[in-house]
């Protein structure tokens, strides 16, 4: 019964979002305020209906109602409750429902919280959100109904793919979807602006908080997914340039470009056409990602059952929305008046450079991701494009970006000179060089490029600190004044410095974990010891442990350094009863930023076991860096200027603003 109510709620949501797609538009056309305001009401109701539907499906999972086909396919009574809940989106239908839930949530958030948005703009934004929501509701209702019944109901479910039975599934997809779908708002804002024809600095100020929320979630979501793959797959890898990873990385790159270009638009009223295009493209790439992952074009742990009708449907959505929005862009972009002029060497120039590199990098990732698909479609040749391609194309493009990163924030708007900016960074350059030299001497004979990359990482990190120091005062300013000025700096300045610092940390982590790591593989009998990266690992015997819905064979390992016990690790091979499938559970010993990663291999009748060990210096920074970047985004998001004091018509007439 509850499942039917959930299904009904989805149909109800579709009805309301169809109303939302049309009625406010009529309101805008005939300047009818009540029709325009209806968008906010329908957005909230549609969200409540979808939320109810989502709760209904969750209820079916938690109570193991196997009369619902989807629950039977992906759940099991013995599964711990947390995985029953996260299992809701561990399959195609449920994950689409989560997608829709987030989409309707963002519409509702705009409806409720965007109070200072001009009525027409708000109505148009919600109209476009309505188009998106009704399309995806149609998709789920026609091709992927999660509430389909199974009669007669079986006694036991088929369980969730064991790889997905992890706390990672509870966190990674919701965050990622928050990011992906969050960019639907920048898309809607862009279309609304094109339809109404009014685009100015205020528009950028309205869009920026939403773009920031989406970017923050996507940043943490991708980092979280990377860490999940790292510990769950047992290969010690953290990024594979897998098409599905690329699908989430491309919107991230463009989203990063977008939050930088809105800055120019907001402050200087320039780059309008480009920013609008970027807002459209970012979400288009999120849609493309959804298509690649959900259509079954790619085989991956992310793509659940593939059904050709779904692929065609999503492709149609893709064509209509991307094609339609780009056509609208082409029609209306010429009517936009170019805004503030600036010279190439200026803050705007630096941000344009940032956008140029990020967009080009996205293009190289896109080529690498789609080339195998296209080639196979053309002449049937099967190829794979792996890390070597991306290291050769994406890697070099990042170098100028990282070099320019500390320069940009030190430049002034409109026109600037390179020499004074460089002069302020002498100290930073010297320190970075020193850091690189120290690393070079520590790892004598090691890879030269990596030493340079270490220098670059320090250049970025120290550059971020230098910006804050520069803003606190000229040479000779007393410390007290400096502190006072620092606390008084706008939060966006703190935010960008923090985010840039995070990028430096990320680069440092990548270099440490890929260039200076050690890998060792050995077969050990009980009592035998192997040496890896200065640690002694001893095989202490095998054991068997029982979990709620699995049984695991544990290899007991003690880790010693200079004879002193520092850790007991128990990597394991798990066998899940329901699907009779095995997973590898690596054991990880973290010491500050460095990790010792132990993965179990084959075990033999004489109790010996193959043990795969990786020592990865600074690897923690690979995930901590993005977290710092996201914190930077949050600081920037909390800037009051983004929410209040937006110049409105009322203000211009000299009336007091009611913030």
């Amino acid at each position, binding site marked *: 019964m509850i499942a039917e109510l959930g299904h009904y709620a989805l149909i109800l949501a579709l009805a309301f979002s169809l109303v939302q797609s049309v009625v406010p538009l009529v309101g805008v056309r005939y300047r009818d305020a009540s029709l325009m305001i209806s968008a906010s009401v329908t957005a909230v109701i549609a969200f409540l209906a979808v939320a109810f539907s989502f709760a209904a499906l969750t209820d079916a999972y938690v109570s193991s109602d196997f009369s619902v086909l989807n629950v039977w396919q992906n759940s099991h009574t013995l599964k711990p409750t947390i995985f029953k809940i996260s299992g809701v989106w561990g399959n195609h239908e449920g994950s689409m429902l989560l997608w829709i839930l987030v989409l309707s949530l963002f519409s509702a958030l705009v409806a409720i919280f965007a109070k200072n948005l001009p009525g027409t703009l708000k109505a148009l934004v919600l109209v476009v959100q309505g188009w998106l929501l009704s399309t995806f509701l149609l998709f789920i209702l026609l091709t992927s109904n999660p509430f389909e019944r199974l009669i007669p109901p079986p006694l036991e479910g088929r369980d969730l793919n064991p790889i997905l039975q992890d706390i990672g599934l509870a966190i990674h997809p919701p965050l990622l979807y928050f990011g992906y779908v969050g960019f639907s708002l920048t898309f809607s804002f862009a279309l609304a602006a094109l339809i109404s024809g009014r685009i100015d600095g205020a528009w950028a100020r309205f869009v920026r908080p939403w773009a920031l929320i989406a970017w923050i979630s996507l940043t943490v979501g991708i980092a979280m997914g990377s860490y999940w793959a790292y510990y769950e797959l*047992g290969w010690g890898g953290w990024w594979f340039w897998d098409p599905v990873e690329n699908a989430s990385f491309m919107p991230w790159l463009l989203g990063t470009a977008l939050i930088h270009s809105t800055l120019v638009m907001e402050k200087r009223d320039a780059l309008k056409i480009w920013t609008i295009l970027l807002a459209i493209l970012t979400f288009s790439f999120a849609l493309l990602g959804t298509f690649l992952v959900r259509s079954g074009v790619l085989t991956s742990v992310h793509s659940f059952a593939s059904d050709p009708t779904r692929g065609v449907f999503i492709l149609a959505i893709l064509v209509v929305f991307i094609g339609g929005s780009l056509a609208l862009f082409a029609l209306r972009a010429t009517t936009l008046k170019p805004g503030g002029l600036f010279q190439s060497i200026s803050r705007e120039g630096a941000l344009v450079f940032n956008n140029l590199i990020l967009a080009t990098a996205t293009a190289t990732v896109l080529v690498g991701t789609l080339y195998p698909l296209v080639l196979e479609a053309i002449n049937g040749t099967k190829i794979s494009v792996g890390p070597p*391609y991306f290291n*050769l194309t994406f890697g070099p493009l990042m170098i100028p970006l990282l070099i320019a990163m500390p320069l940009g924030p030190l430049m002034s708007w409109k026109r600037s000179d390179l020499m004074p900016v460089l002069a302020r960074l002498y100290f930073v350059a010297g320190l970075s060089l020193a850091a690189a030299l120290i690393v070079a001497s520590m790892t004598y004979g090691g890879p030269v490029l990596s030493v340079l990359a270490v220098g670059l990482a320090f250049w970025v990190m120290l550059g971020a600190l230098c910006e804050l120091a520069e803003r606190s005062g000229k040479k000779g300013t007393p410390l007290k004044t400096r502190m006072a000025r620092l606390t008084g700096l706008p939060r966006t300045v703190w935010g960008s410095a923090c985010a840039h610092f995070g990028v430096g940390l990320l680069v440092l982590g990548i270099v440490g974990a890929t260039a200076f790591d050690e890998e060792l593989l050995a077969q050990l009998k009980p009592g035998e010891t192997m040496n890896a990266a200065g640690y002694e690992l001893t095989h202490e015997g095998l054991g068997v442990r029982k979990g709620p819905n699995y049984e695991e064979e544990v290899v007991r390992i003690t880790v010693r350094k200079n004879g002193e016990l520092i850790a007991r690790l128990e990597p394991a*091979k798990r066998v899940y009863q329901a699907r009779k499938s095995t997973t590898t559970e690596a054991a990880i010993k973290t010491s500050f930023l460095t990790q010792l990663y132990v993965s179990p291999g*084959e075990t033999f009748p004489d109790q010996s076991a193959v043990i795969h060990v990786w020592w990865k210096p600074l690897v923690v920074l690979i995930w901590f860096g993005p977290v710092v970047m996201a914190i930077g985004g949050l600081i920037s998001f909390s800037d009051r200027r983004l929410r209040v004091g937006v110049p409105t018509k009322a203000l211009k007439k000299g009336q007091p603003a009611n913030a």
Partner: protein
Amino acid sequence: MTRKQRRFLNIGMVGAVLAIAATLVAVALRDEIVFFHFPTDIIVEKKAAPGQRIRIGGLVEIDSVVREGTQVSFTVTDGENSLPVVYEGSLPDLFEEGQGVIAEGALQTDLKFKADKVLAKHDENYIPRELEDLLKEKNVWQGSKK
């Protein structure tokens, strides 16, 4: 600098970045892609030279898996021909005799394939698409175990 010169410089800058990126992509697509072959392609049609980095795929032949310490050897078959593979490292969880597998590495001069990466199906229902196509083609496809 006149306005015209400045504009010229800006466009030149953008053009340079794009040209560099395009060159890198072209070089990488020529040198860094990995072709996929079946054992028959290699043994009969000699599509891959020893030392060239390729991927091979097929089924792991029943009773062919031999483990000696950290080293594993097995043969990959496409129903017509089989290719011996040697590998050192941990095998994926879903690696199994009689099941689909993809190995990345290079052919040695003794016509054994030395793999440094082995990929298996993602879970019990799905197998790499290349394999699915092959198995259907060679009529050894048993369908997904639903």
